[in-house]
Structures are given as C-alpha cells and as structure tokens.
C-alpha cells in the first residue's frame, strides 16, 4: 500500500485550513480520512498524489466544506451533553450543597444590594473568562478545538433563559431576581466544570493537545 509523505499530509492540512476548517481536532480527523482515500486511489488507479487528491476532492469537496467549514458546522450536541453532565452524581451533590448553603446565606444578607451588584460581577467574570480562553487558545496553544468552543453555546443559552427575569429595573420582586441570579451563578459554575471536563479530554490525549 502506498503511504503519503509528511509533505503530502501537510498539503491536505493546508488545503483544509484554507477551506476554513478552523478546528484542529476536526482537521486532524478529516486529514486522515482524505489521506486514506487518496492512498487507496493511488494504489488502485496507479496515479500520483496530486491526481488522486484532485479526483477525490472533485467528488467530495462540496460535502466536506458544507458540513465542516467555518460557521457552517452547527451542532446542538453541547446542550444535550451539558444536560447529561448536570445529571452526574457529583454535580447533583454539588447542586444540593450549593442551594442548601445559599438558603442560609440569603437569610443574612440584603437581597436588594445583592441583585443590584450581581450583574456587574457576573459580566466581569464572563469577560475575564472570555479573554482567558481567547488568549490561551489563539496565542499560546495556537490550536482550536471544536468540542470546547461549541460548549459556549451553553453559556449563551444560560444568558438568554435567565436574564429576562434577572433585571432589577424590569422585575420588582427581589426574591425572584435573587433566586434567578443564584440559578445563573449555579449554572455558570456548572458550565465552568463542564468546560474544564471538555478540555481535560483533549489534555489527556497528548497527540491532539501538543
């Protein structure tokens, strides 16, 4: 069986990069897929790498780029995964301790002050988290992982579901706003754990991470 050279593989990877397949993990898998198909073509049709590559891409380019390039690759998978993550025993245990603790904490604080200040701190944390993620993966790691970035979809869902009930200028029931803010806080912490969990999956696999 003819095998591709490192140069050939680099060519495929660059081609995918130029075709806006921006995630390293997706590109790694597609490079292997295309390379396997090209090797088979080279073997069975007795042609060189460039002819085999061209012949494969003529037939498959549309399907590949439509599904995987840039913003065309959408998935609701993170929502389902986050839902399953929330049902894990250690997350349920954490939720129980969290809400139990908050129940006693709320008896001793001024809720109106809390709801007025919560948003500023929450948005600041969100901003800092975004800066950290963007800087680390774009400038230090110089790699982007599909499953990690897709998980931000969960964060936007948390934002849009809870924010309408959490604005002190529109809702006057401080008790409702307080518990909405506490729910935002809980889901944000749960999201952070979910995010770390996803990164750990890549980190544990040195081939992908390095």
């Amino acid at each position, binding site marked *: 069986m003819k*095998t*591709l050279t490192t140069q050939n593989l680099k060519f495929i990877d660059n081609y995918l990069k130029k075709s806006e397949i921006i995630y390293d993990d997706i590109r790694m*898998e597609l490079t292997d897929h295309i390379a396997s198909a090209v090797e088979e073509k080279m073997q069975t049709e007795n042609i060189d790498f460039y002819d085999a590559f061209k012949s494969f891409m003529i037939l498959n380019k549309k399907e590949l780029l439509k599904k995987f390039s840039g913003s065309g690759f959408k998935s609701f998978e993170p929502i389902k995964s986050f839902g399953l993550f929330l049902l894990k025993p250690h997350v349920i245990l954490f939720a129980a301790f969290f809400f139990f603790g908050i129940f006693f904490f709320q008896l001793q604080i001024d809720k109106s002050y809390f709801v007025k200040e919560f948003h500023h701190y929450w948005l600041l944390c969100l901003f800092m988290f975004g800066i950290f993620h963007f800087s680390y993966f774009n400038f230090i790691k110089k790699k982007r992982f599909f499953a990690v970035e897709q998980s931000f979809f969960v964060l936007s869902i948390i934002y849009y579901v809870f924010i309408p009930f959490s604005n002190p200028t529109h809702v006057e029931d401080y008790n409702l706003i307080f518990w909405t803010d506490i729910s935002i806080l809980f889901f944000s912490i749960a999201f952070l754990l979910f995010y770390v969990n996803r990164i750990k999956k890549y980190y544990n696999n040195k081939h*992908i991470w390095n």
Partner: protein
Amino acid sequence: MKNSSLYKGSLNTIIMKLLEEKGRMYGYEITQKVKAITLGELNITEGALYPALHKLEAEGLLEVEVEKVDNRLRKYYKLTEKGNKETVNRLAELEEFIKNMQNIVNPKLSY
C-alpha cells in the same frame, strides 16, 4: 447517503453494530466497510458520518483512542460499556422495525 430518509435513521445503529463486531474502527474504515457489505449500494458521506460519531461520543456511547499511523494521527472509535448495552437495544428495535415493515409491505409473508 443513498435513499437518505430511509437510511439516515439507522446510521447510528449501523455504526454501533460495526463497532460491536470489529472492536474499534476509524472513520474511513467505517465508510469502506459499509460500502463493501452492501456491495456499493450504501455510501456513507463524511458529512453524515462524522457528526454521527461525534454525537455518539458526546452521549457516552463511544470512546476515542488517538494513535499515530503512517505519519498522521488517527482517531479510533470503540463502544463504551453503555454503548454495548445500547447497541443490543437498538438492534432489537431495528429488527422489530424491519419485521413490521415487512408485514406492511408484503403481508403474505407474515402468514
């Protein structure tokens, strides 16, 4: 994928059945195996296969092993314990479906 609506619903079960038999497989290998079994009748496209594999992985039905093969990285998929149990359920469901469809399409055979 040929006759998309009929086959699409069974894609996950097809993948899981192949992995149950082979232990672990990579994407291209799955497409070629399906092509060979169906004598070229069923062609799974990359656009259908990889999102299905990623979804099954996210659901905890598949796990992944990455290895360096022929100068490149290859992602192998295999069933988890949960995936093995789910495969049995899904195959039973599929068989039941085929049986019912056969009864509808060709009632004489069911007597």
